[in-house]
């Protein structure tokens, strides 16, 4: 018992932290590290699922894999468009919910609803709404006279990705709206009052006060959504499975197919590694921006 009190406290601390750290290492660090290792092997049906060391062969194969590049393209498009739309709609929703009106709490609850529901179930709902024959969306458009015959939203390669984006926007806009709403509510009203006394219009208020002060929240929300959208799986898996003809195949769907359908573990691991690196790079850039922005956000 010659340990100092500080040592004891530290030790207690480690014991408190240990289960969480072990769990995170097991479920996060190990799989990703393992993927790095496995990506150097060929382990697929051709090798009867035995690992054979082939160095960077998998990465070379990836370079000429047209489907991989298409999936990267799809993922990028999906991520960019859906996050952008979600930001705009989310900001709009947040601004509206930040006004005081009767029943605001109820509206806020309802606006949050899409976020809380299971994506896989919601995907079936949207599949049904966008059904080419019985879908209500086609019906509404036809009643409005905008189209003459029903569009096969999910079956037509030209429409499928946009349809999936629409569903994703619906599902995750509330998340952004809530984050931004919290940011809006933290901006003290006196700032607006002072600025208004200075003669600023509402638009100037928004542009010169709301937007800069909200920037940290916007960036964080974007970062979160970017990462989630880049890894989108359940929505697309249920709505289109990546089809038609790979039109909605994102990296996640491709990775899943490579591993679970083709049993091409080595190549799947290489895909995981590359996706991980791309995401890490993007996160690092975003974090760098964020850290530069932080001083501006420190007014609280």
């Amino acid at each position, binding site marked *: 018992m010659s340990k100092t*009190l*500080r040592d*004891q406290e530290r030790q207690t601390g480690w014991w408190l932290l240990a289960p969480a750290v072990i769990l995170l290492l097991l479920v996060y660090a190990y799989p990703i590290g393992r993927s790095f290792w496995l990506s150097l092997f060929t382990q697929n049906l051709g090798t009867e699922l035995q690992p054979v060391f082939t160095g960077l062969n998998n990465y070379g194969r990836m370079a000429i894999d047209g489907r991989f590049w298409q999936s990267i393209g799809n993922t990028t498009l999906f991520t960019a468009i859906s996050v952008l739309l979600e930001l705009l709609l989310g900001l709009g929703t947040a601004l509206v919910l930040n006004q005081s009106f009767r029943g605001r709490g109820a509206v806020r609850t309802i606006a949050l609803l899409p976020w809380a529901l299971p994506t896989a179930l919601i995907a079936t709902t949207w599949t049904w709404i966008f059904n080419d024959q019985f879908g209500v969306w086609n019906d509404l458009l036809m009643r409005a006279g905008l189209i003459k015959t029903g569009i096969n939203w999910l079956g037509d390669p030209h429409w499928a990705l946009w349809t999936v984006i629409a569903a994703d926007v619906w599902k995750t806009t509330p998340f952004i709206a809530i984050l931004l709403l919290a940011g809006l509510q933290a901006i003290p009203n006196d700032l607006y009052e002072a600025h208004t006394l200075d003669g600023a219009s509402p638009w100037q208020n928004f542009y010169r006060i709301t937007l800069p002060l909200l920037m940290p929240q916007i960036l964080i929300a974007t970062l979160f959504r970017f990462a989630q959208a880049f890894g989108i799986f359940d929505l697309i898996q249920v709505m289109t499975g990546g089809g038609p003809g790979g039109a909605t195949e994102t990296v996640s769907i491709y990775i899943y197919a490579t591993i679970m359908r083709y049993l091409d573990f080595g190549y799947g691991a290489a895909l995981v590694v590359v996706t991980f690196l791309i995401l890490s790079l993007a996160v690092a850039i975003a974090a760098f921006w964020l850290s530069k922005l932080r001083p501006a956000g420190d007014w609280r």
Partner: protein
Amino acid sequence: MAQLKLRALNKTYNPQVVPLKDLSLDVQDGEFLTLLGPSGCGKSTTLRLIAGLEQPTRGEIWIGDRNVTEQAPGDRNIAMVFQSYALYPHMTVYDNIASGLKLRRMPASEIRQRIEEVNRFLGLDGLLKRKPGQLSGGQRQRVALARALVRRPDVFLLDEPLSNLDALLREQVRAELKQIFSDQNAPIVYVTHDQTEAMTLSTRVAVLNDGYLQQLDSPKRIYTRPANRFVAGFIGSPQMNLLPLKCDQNCAMLGRYPIPLPDRIRLPEVILGIRPEHVRLARPGETSTLQGQVMLVENLGMSDLLSVQVEGTSIGLRALLSPDQSWGEKNISLVLPAESLHWFDPQTGDRLP
């Protein structure tokens, strides 16, 4: 029974704690020691070190003949009253008071008996079943005190226990505190930045600044014989006049006016200290007077605080005069009584004997 000894305690800088340098203190049984100083002086650090909430970088803490430096707070048998009272919000008053005893596996009957006892002179009747949220500030303060008293600890620690009370209540509780702790048989260490509390409650006061112990003395001596320039300026309100003066042979020169230095002081410069309440109006015919111009008069109620610019200098002198005295609109003659003068070394700040 027990005696609290701090031996050369050091706490080096870290972001959370004010540093502490080479603090040694002895607190005897029943003695009420106040740690006094401005914020950031290290007084809370000292208290937290004693409690074991922080670990000293160097030095030792003894309670009686136990070296508790490496003991956990709960093992030191101390009790502490916090500024925020730190009552457990989810427990009843009774459980709050009993918690420390229960942890020491005291039989329930004895706990009940002890609480009764404390209850009697703190007057907590009818509060025992309530939760802290349902109590007023003064009541919470009492519960916090009760929680400490019931423990019969080897040392009491009180961290600014009055600062969350409003002014009226504070005076009342201050008086009660004095009474309650006069019966206690353990060392009491009390932290405050309020010198009135320090003066009224303590048997001894330790003035801290910048992590250093400045003076450890009875309240009276702290006031009458401040050990250095810092203590002189910190204790007493309004603040003591501290005038840097040049010396000319045996005299310090306040403008044109020579002030005789005590014999042993031979320095080119000194700091002259005099409390505003000791400056008095010159009587008619008095010779060695100081001429000055009244720059500002602040009415403090029972007296007036005058800011006087000493003639021929830019030095300002404050004097506390009772309003029944009269003086000229502008010009005023003042006397600095020799027995009320304090001299300090401008280099070290130490008192010159």
